[in-house]
């Protein structure tokens, strides 16, 4: 039995620069593991330790999946092994294609009984991969999970919706997407990082997991920085009575 935690490698959005023509410039952007995926990896690491099972980390993407620093980073967070599916097309693929690839990769693994995903990818945040992955595997799948316990072949979980928390039970295997406040992802120790270098990691092509069609349902037309709305930008400065009262008077006029 094993647990799979899925993750996506994304550019750090803090480092994205905007070109004069509003296109995005990624040249200074460092890579990171998707923020919300870290919660899935942490949940997997904790469950693997408490149920004495093995955690495998799984990603699909472009050449970024071969980044040795990221590989070390993911393996220092608990997984015993890392699997990456790599194709240039996957760098911009969306939930439909990514879920297809992940499902195919999971089918090639032995006795997976639980797959964990984050709430959404840090770049696109479509919040779809976990559910679509479950549907493709023919497994029960659920999102918005804030706590998870596994006993034998059953998982008991809590799911936070708008105004209620559902307490649910499911027979494994299943795919579970966890929310960001489920846990606090660990900060790997130096020992974890050194140990990560010795753990196995393999990179496969889509073809090697049996997928040849990488066409998605949607086509990207453009990705541009938002147009700034024209604003008056009238700035008053100072915390003296006159400035503040004239500012407050202006607000009153807006009512």
């Amino acid at each position, binding site marked *: 039995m094993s647990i799979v935690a899925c993750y996506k490698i994304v550019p750090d959005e803090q480092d*994205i620069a905007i070109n004069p023509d509003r296109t995005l410039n990624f040249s200074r952007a460092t890579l990171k593991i998707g923020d919300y995926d870290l919660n899935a990896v942490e949940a997997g690491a904790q469950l693997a330790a408490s149920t004495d099972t093995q955690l495998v980390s799984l990603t699909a993407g472009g050449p970024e999946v071969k980044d040795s620093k990221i590989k070390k980073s993911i393996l220092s967070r608990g997984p015993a092994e890392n699997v990456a599916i790599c194709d240039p097309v996957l760098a911009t693929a*969306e*939930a*439909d294609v990514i*879920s297809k690839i992940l499902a195919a990769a999971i089918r090639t693994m032995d006795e997976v009984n639980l797959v964990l995903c984050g709430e*959404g990818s840090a*770049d696109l*945040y*479509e919040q*779809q991969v*976990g*559910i*679509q992955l479950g*549907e*493709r595997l023919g497994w*029960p*799948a*659920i*999102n*918005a999970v804030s706590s998870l316990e596994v006993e034998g072949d059953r998982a*008991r979980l809590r799911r*936070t*919706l*708008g*105004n*209620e928390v*559902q*307490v*649910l*039970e*499911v*027979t494994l295997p*299943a795919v579970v997407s966890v929310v960001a*406040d489920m846990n606090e992802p660990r900060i790997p120790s130096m020992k974890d990082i050194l140990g990560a270098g010795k753990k196995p990691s393999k990179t496969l092509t889509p073809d090697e997991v049996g997928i040849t069609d990488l066409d998605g*349902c*949607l*086509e*990207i*037309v*453009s*990705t*541009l*920085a*938002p147009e*700034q*709305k024209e*604003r008056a*930008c009238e*700035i*008053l*400065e*100072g*915390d003296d009575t006159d*400035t503040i009262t004239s*500012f*407050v008077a*202006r*607000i009153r006029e*807006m*009512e």
Partner: protein
Amino acid sequence: MNKDTIILIAEEPRDFEVLIAGAVALGGKPVAIYAGPDADAQKIAAMGARVLHFGELTEGALFADAADAFENAITSEGGSVILGRSTKAVQEIAGKLAVRLNAGVVNDATSLAWDDDALLLTHLVYGGSAVRIEKATGSVIALLGPSAFEPVTLPAGEVVACNDAIEVGPFRLLDVIEKEEEQVDLGAAKIVVCVGRGIGTQENLAAIEAFARKLGAEMTCTRPITEVNEWMARSRYLGVSGTTIKPDVYIGFGISGQVQHTVGMNGAKTVVVVNKDKNAPFFKQCDLGLVADVDKVLPYL
């Protein structure tokens, strides 16, 4: 692509308002697929949609257990554009339907437009740093926030009873715990007052809340105020993973104006900002700004 029939999916009757408006914006007839009480199906019909009503969910069933019934309804209606309200349960059923119908999904779509026979869908990516336009030439599911389209008035539609039973799925519902946290609908607010961590203390928050009451404004906040300070309900935070609103007036206190927040409010007609840091990016994106310490301003509000 079927441009005439636009399928709508939501959990609550009030959520259909924005979806109906979206269907009208696309020039199609709104067809709501709904599982819930009969009175609520009538409410949705009164808003102007034809309602395919599946009765109430079987005791213990989750919303997504309706996937089989909804899939059949979409197929028999021949709909290729499906609009859903972007809630967790709708995101869940959308994922199941997307795989079965071979449809793309765009979450939190901010605008929709026809380009000949293709549908263009706009949404934010990279934490609000960019706007992406995607093109769908086949079936597509667009999930919308509460303010994506202005409400419209239509003649009432009819309710059509559908008999497919919605059975309990693989998840056994053991218990439902009502959350005590308040749920607010910020979409209707004309004036909002918003606070960020720069307000400093909970006493200041109370003073700003009193000011908001005087203005008849709704209180909103940035993500850290709910998730780090836990001072306000999650339904009140604006931004990339929170709510997006387009009020007449937005008044922000102690907010720097990071893109993750401003994507939630930059549709406001007038933006007013108070911050002590004159280099805060928000001062470049406001109509009226005051560079001052929030503590000094509060006594005058």
